[in-house]
């Protein structure tokens, strides 16, 4: 039995949910389904290419082709190397900074939160532009300074591309995550910290064995979002790539997708690769969520 009030609630709920879900269907679900369909076809040119192209059903060929393409797999190797550098430095750095901020003078806290967060207000593309200038010898005060000290580092070489890209991301995200960790630290009960102090635990000991474990959920969530973001790496290497052309056009999975679609006009392959990236990110986030849950259980 439904009361008039329950019916009114359902009607209103439908009304309030409709705009979001109509658009969600149009720009998320429908494109994914359509890309899934497109990924099953391939363009075949008949004869010597004079007969025009036709779309033929290819089954999972595009997926097989993507997965067996060294360029696509290489993109995931790049991401793995990037994550191995970026996550420890950025999350570890943000954690250390949050712990430092937690013990800093009250007056300094507001300033440092602001100063360290500020790069996050800079769009990724502009951050990449700024840093590419700072990496470019002759234009950059940083490379000039290092060179005067006898350190000749080519930030734009292929060997250093992982570090150069990771540095831009660290610059953008370290303050953001520090603010999150710092906010989580404020929720650690004062009694617990007092008790640790009375037991004679020093600052570093308290930080490692009390503060860090207590904000583990916040850390796990930050790692999750960072991993999802890392899989999507595109803007920074795209800008670095146009400056140095040393890293190739399929350096990350997303760059592979763009090249497949707009250099080779192979949209079936690009669609298959996009869906594989989305799937990879979803599996990764599932694993990270699982892992952090099982770890946070006593």
């Amino acid at each position, binding site marked *: 039995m439904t009361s008039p009030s329950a019916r009114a*609630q*359902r009607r*209103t*709920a439908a009304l309030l*949910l409709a*705009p*979001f879900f109509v*658009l*969600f269907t149009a*720009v*998320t679900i429908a*494109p*994914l389904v*359509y*890309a899934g369909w497109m990924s099953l076809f391939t363009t075949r040119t008949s004869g010597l290419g004079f007969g025009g192209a036709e779309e033929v059903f290819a089954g999972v060929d595009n997926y097989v082709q993507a997965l067996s393409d060294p360029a696509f797999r290489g993109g995931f190797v790049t991401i793995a190397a990037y994550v191995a550098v970026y996550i420890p430095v950025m999350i570890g750095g943000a954690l250390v900074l949050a712990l430092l901020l937690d*013990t*800093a*003078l009250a007056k300094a806290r507001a300033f*440092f939160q602001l*100063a*360290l967060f*500020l*790069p996050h*207000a*800079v*769009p*990724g*593309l*502009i951050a990449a*532009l700024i840093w590419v200038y*700072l990496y470019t010898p002759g234009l*950059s*005060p940083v490379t000039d300074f290092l060179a005067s000290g006898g350190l000749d580092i080519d930030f734009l070489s292929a060997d250093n591309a992982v570090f150069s890209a990771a540095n831009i991301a660290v*610059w953008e995200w370290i303050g*953001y995550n520090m603010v*999150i960790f710092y*906010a*989580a630290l404020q929720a650690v009960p004062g009694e617990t910290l*007092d*008790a640790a102090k*009375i037991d*004679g635990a*020093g*600052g570093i000991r308290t930080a490692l064995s009390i503060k860090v474990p207590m904000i583990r959920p*916040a850390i796990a*969530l930050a790692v999750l979002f960072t991993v999802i973001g890392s*899989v999507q790496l595109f803007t920074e290497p795209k*800008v670095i790539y*146009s400056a140095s052309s040393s890293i190739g056009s399929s350096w990350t999975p*997303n760059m592979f*997708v*763009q090249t497949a*679609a*707009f250099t080779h006009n192979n*949209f079936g392959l*690009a*669609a298959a*690769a*996009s869906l594989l990236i989305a799937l990879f990110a979803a599996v990764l*986030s599932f694993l990270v969520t699982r892992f952090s849950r099982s770890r946070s259980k006593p």
Partner: protein
Amino acid sequence: MTQPTTRTAPAPRGPGRRPSVLLSKAGVTAMLGLAALYTLLPMLWLVLSSTKSRQDLFATNGFAPGDDFALLDNLQYLFEADNGIFLRWLLNTVLYAGVGALLATVFSVAAGYAFDKLDFPGKERIFSLVLLGVMVPGTAMAIPLYLIAAEAGLVNSFWGVFIPGLVFPFGVYLARVFSASYVPGEVLEAARVDGAGEFRTFCRIALPMVAPGFVTIFLFQFTQIWNSFFLPLVMLSDEELFPVNLGLYVWYSSALSQGHPQDYLLAIVGSLVSVVPLVVLFLMLQRFWKSGMTAGAVK
């Protein structure tokens, strides 16, 4: 409140228990200061470079002012370049990010409120669809969106970039959290007893109460759209439709590939002009940022 028990005899102090130099107030401030140099110097470089003449840009130290103060010349050059296309790009970005995020926020808040306060069948299953949307990486959607836009004839149109910005699943999640913490259920019960309709109750009572959350969600989606690069890159080819991001990238690439050194300066000054509103917005609305960033973390 229970007072923490005070002991008269202090715990024994081992050798490692002395406050180290690094943890002294000065040490902490120094380390945070170093980190602040890392975050602020590149921004200082951007500001200083924007005030330099083309010669000074290459000839003087990047962290020092140039010989001439050429900011006004540079700005004039920026807004006159390519028949004033930069202003067009700014305007486009305001439409994509400003109007887009505003609508996205209205839709998110409406949906988040419905998930939090209203009863309807299959609620949690539908909500898990929203969470799935949060997990789908945005850039992986670029090619699927391009393909379906091609089918709908929206490639290289304003709508091809604008419509995807209207959907913000994380905003629905945030709105549900905000609705739960800002709108007390008793207020709604009272309104229902008074015979106010559900929709009226949402508009007149709930909406004003979640206003701070509204600002937070708007800010998040606004910066997300302002940041987006991959989608406009694949969707747009007409320069008149570009957002600022894409325009700056084109100037920068042409500076490299065609050896137009004046375009280097355009990309730098243009970057400064497009970053300033974002920094100002952030400085003015700090507390709204923080509430959104931490709402996800406490859950």
